[in-house]
């Protein structure tokens, strides 16, 4: 099993006695697009917070590339190539679109504490930033203030910013949530492209997206793993149908 890049063992999170994530054992294979699905309140976002140490786990451990990362700070985890996005679009609203990507690119330069250098010293990153914007079809918006972008574009920008870190594993929390049909298709294509040579773990409600994009699916319900497998296997599971797809089966 050497090609497991991310693994949890008995990962548990309790909030004042309420168990939001309940001893989850999960293995994510290198190179996979792995979906995490489950009804609202199942604990998916909390699980992401545990993986990236935005929340401390009550019990259990997270192994990334075979090593426990329970002692690292969230930013250190990001530096090691395990990068998350957020359920609510997370962009830097009053920076320009290009600056959003550039602020992710600048960290490896090692000048981020240099308060005496002009910001124009970052201009050499502009070309790379433009390339990343082109990848998500935002090159025409580079100089715009980010708050002015429509929602779907903001999510695309978020993806470009994440890609700027060249992560090994990307955690995407509902990347298509609240999007119109066209935006969903565009983002799905973006993820497909971005996932080449990387691993993706994504929370996704849209089962069409899941079926077309993901190699493996884990179903979470009330904090526990209910089922796991590829799409046909999971969607045939009667427990899953009852817990999750019952309402949404018509949607597929």
């Amino acid at each position, binding site marked *: 099993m050497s090609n497991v890049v991310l693994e949890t063992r008995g990962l548990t999170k309790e909030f004042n006695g309420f168990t939001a994530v309940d001893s989850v054992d999960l293995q994510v294979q290198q190179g996979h697009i792995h979906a995490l699905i489950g009804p609202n309140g199942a604990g998916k976002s909390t699980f992401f917070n545990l993986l*990236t140490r*935005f929340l401390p786990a009550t019990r259990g451990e997270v192994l990334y590339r075979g090593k426990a990362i329970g002692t690292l*700070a*969230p*930013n*250190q985890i*990001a*530096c090691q190539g395990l*990068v*998350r*996005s*957020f359920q609510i679009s*997370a*962009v*830097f*609203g*009053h*920076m*320009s679109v*290009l*600056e959003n990507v*550039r*602020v*992710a690119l*600048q*960290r490896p*330069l090692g*000048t*981020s*504490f*240099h*308060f*005496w*250098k*002009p*910001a*124009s*010293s*970052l*201009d050499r990153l*502009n070309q790379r930033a433009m390339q990343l914007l082109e990848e998500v079809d935002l090159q025409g918006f*580079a*100089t715009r203030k980010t708050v002015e972008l429509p929602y779907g574009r903001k999510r695309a920008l978020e993806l470009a*910013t994440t890609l700027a*870190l060249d992560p090994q594993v990307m955690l995407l929390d509902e990347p298509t949530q609240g999007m119109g049909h066209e935006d969903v298709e565009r983002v799905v294509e973006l993820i497909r492209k971005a996932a080449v040579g990387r691993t993706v773990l994504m929370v996704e409600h849209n089962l069409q997206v899941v079926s077309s994009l993901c190699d493996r699916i884990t179903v979470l319900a009330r904090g526990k793993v209910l089922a796991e497998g590829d799409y046909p296997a999971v969607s045939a599971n009667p427990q899953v149908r009852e817990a999750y797809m019952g309402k949404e089966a018509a949607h597929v």
Partner: protein
Amino acid sequence: MTTSTLYPDTLQASRQRRQLQLGLALLAIALVAPFVAYPIFLMKILCFALFACAFNLLLGYVGLLSFGHAAFLGTGGYITGFLLTRYSGLTPELGILGGTAAATLLGLLFGLLAIRRQGIYFAMITLALAQMTFFIYLQAPFTGGENGMHGVPRGKLLGLIDLKNDLAMYYFVLAICLSGYLLIRRTVNSPFGQVLYAIRENEPRAISLGYNVAAYKLLAFVISAGIAGLAGATKTVVFQFASLTDAHWHMSGEVILMTLLGGVGTLLGPVVGSSLVVWLHHVLGGSVLGSWMGTILGTIFVLCVLLFRDGLVGYVQKFVRRNLR
């Protein structure tokens, strides 16, 4: 605002030209001002302007409300006063440097204790630490307690220029305050400033991009404390006097007022706000309204918060942006 190649060239160029013109005009005014107004009064404005700019670096550009900045102003003043009184061979610039260094160190200490707190808790811890500092200065023998520290010699700048001459003193203070202002301006427009901006806009996202946000905030806090100390140090040399007023929590409150009045998060706002407040003190202090000073400032504060969210400079900037594009 921060980067040169990101905006359409004409807009960027015209904005830069406008900024340069404004800067040169202000510099010209500052250079001739001591021939029109009392140099001492002007120097007081300059010192408080620098103090407010330092405070604004935190509130306006990191989003941290410190309620303890008087401690840094006071420390800069007392340590410089102590050094210059005690060591008669010391030139004023070295005394000021010493006071600034002490405030910077105190800033590091405060910062380490407070920086991981959010919002009101951050404000409360900085207030508590500043109160402790105040009581130390109240008790410590070298400060003169409630009587203050008197007779600090101005000395000779670099051992050459006698600062007893108010005009010489004025230009020295102008040079210091201008350097401090330019340092803040550069800090905001630096690679470091970009990360600060990102943190202020969305802290969890900045963390997820790999930034150790506490370390960035801490550095900003230390820079801010150091420059506030520089302001206090300079003020002591000007007035040849250091007192508890500068370390009192009233002063921490007043710098908030100055910054909000002028425009938080604008580079020039604190300069304008502090000039106004110092001028108000000057005008009202000697009049029958003197005892109403607190009430008047409080009223202005409330009006600012309710009506002029962007402060005077913020208001003007918006106006200019709307009409001069």
